[in-house]
């Protein structure tokens, strides 16, 4: 019985993969990559009710154009489009890193520049009222900005001698400020370890582990 069910399943999956993949492989891969670049890159294991849609978060509306210079288009552009541009730039840096051009000075500086952008966005979000992070969309934006900052900072840090000293200093400053803010929000109960999932940067996980919640500012 088990063998028959297995054969049936394999027949379906095999037929689907072979024929579907052969005919529509390129289109499927482009659709999937579109999904990856557009969707929120926050933990798949996080509680869905705690994390919403970062691109439409009110804090992103207030902060994105302070971080992203789109010139005179800023007044016409929707903030969620600005957020998408920042994510698209991040994808590009990711692809450069995946391509493995470690000796390329520009790609290393690219990682630092992306880290600084996300760090500035996170800093701007943390500067808003603490209770703003009770909103799932705002919290998702915060989690994504913080996670991306530390991920790219680590990537840039691996090639520290080649990145400009001022960029390295800016990243260090942002790192200190963000870790402080994270500690506060951990104590306020606005951020918990599960929001960042299991694969977050060690710096973030350390704060989440060592700090304890003292009150829940989201409870009314």
């Amino acid at each position, binding site marked *: 019985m088990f063998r028959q069910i297995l*054969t*049936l399943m394999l*027949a*379906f*999956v*095999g*037929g*689907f993969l*072979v*024929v*579907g993949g052969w*005919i*529509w492989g390129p*289109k*499927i891969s482009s*659709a999937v990559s579109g999904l990856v670049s*557009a969707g929120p890159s926050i933990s798949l294991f996080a509680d869905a009710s705690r994390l*919403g*849609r970062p*691109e*439409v978060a*009110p804090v992103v*509306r207030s902060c994105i154009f302070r971080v992203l210079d789109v010139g005179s288009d800023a007044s016409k*552009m*929707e903030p*969620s*489009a600005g957020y*998408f541009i920042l994510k698209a730039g991040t994808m590009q840096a990711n692809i450069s890193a995946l391509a493995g051009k470690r000796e390329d000075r520009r790609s290393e500086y690219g990682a630092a520049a992306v880290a600084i952008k996300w760090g500035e966005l996170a800093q701007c979000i943390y500067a808003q009222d603490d209770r703003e992070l009770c909103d799932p*969309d705002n919290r998702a934006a915060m989690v994504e900005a913080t996670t991306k900052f530390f991920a790219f900072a680590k990537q840039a840090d691996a090639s520290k001698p080649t990145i400009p000293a001022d960029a390295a200093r800016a990243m260090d400053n942002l790192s200190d400020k963000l870790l402080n803010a994270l500690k506060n929000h951990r104590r306020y109960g606005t951020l918990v370890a599960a929001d960042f999932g299991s694969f977050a940067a060690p710096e973030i996980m350390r704060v989440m582990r060592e700090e304890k919640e003292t009150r829940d500012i989201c409870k009314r």
Partner: protein
Amino acid sequence: MLEVNFLMRVAFVLGGIFVGINLINYYVLGNSGDYLPGGPRMGEWKQAKIREACYPALESPERDGLLPKLTTNKHRIDWRDLTNAVEMTAALNCYLVTHPNAICERNNRAYIVDYIGRYFLKFDEMMNTARRYGDSEISTVKDLWDSPRNRAINMALMQSATNGRLIKADFGWSVPAAMKPMLDRYTGATDNCPRA
């Protein structure tokens, strides 16, 4: 016994391929028009001439002040949804309002019926997202989809149902909920399309 087993396996492989192809066609490639009912009223949606005839309407929709516009800055609408709402309204307005007789041609009718389904699906999707945020967001989305062009589309749909240019059977199993009452109300209306 061996032959039966072999035939069973072949049947399941072919079944898997058939189901897989159709799922990909519908959900990944979005060719929902392939699943509309056939018959003398409905042609081949891919050959609809109205599609190309309406390309100019989609060139710079931002210049058309009658298309959907946000009335507030405080909203949770993603820019891609906003762009879709504007473009779909501009396109459907062209198919139904600018070219009111386009729907009389079989291929155009198949394409337009499919597009009406997508139009209402987008609206429902945005309303479902808005419900998570409460009444204010719901009214923002409703206002967005209540532009003069959307109202003109609603009027044209009502007229098409009244005069039999659109009937329930054209939509097959996927009649948009918003259109059901008007299609039910005018069941049996005779098609008043000009005869060639």
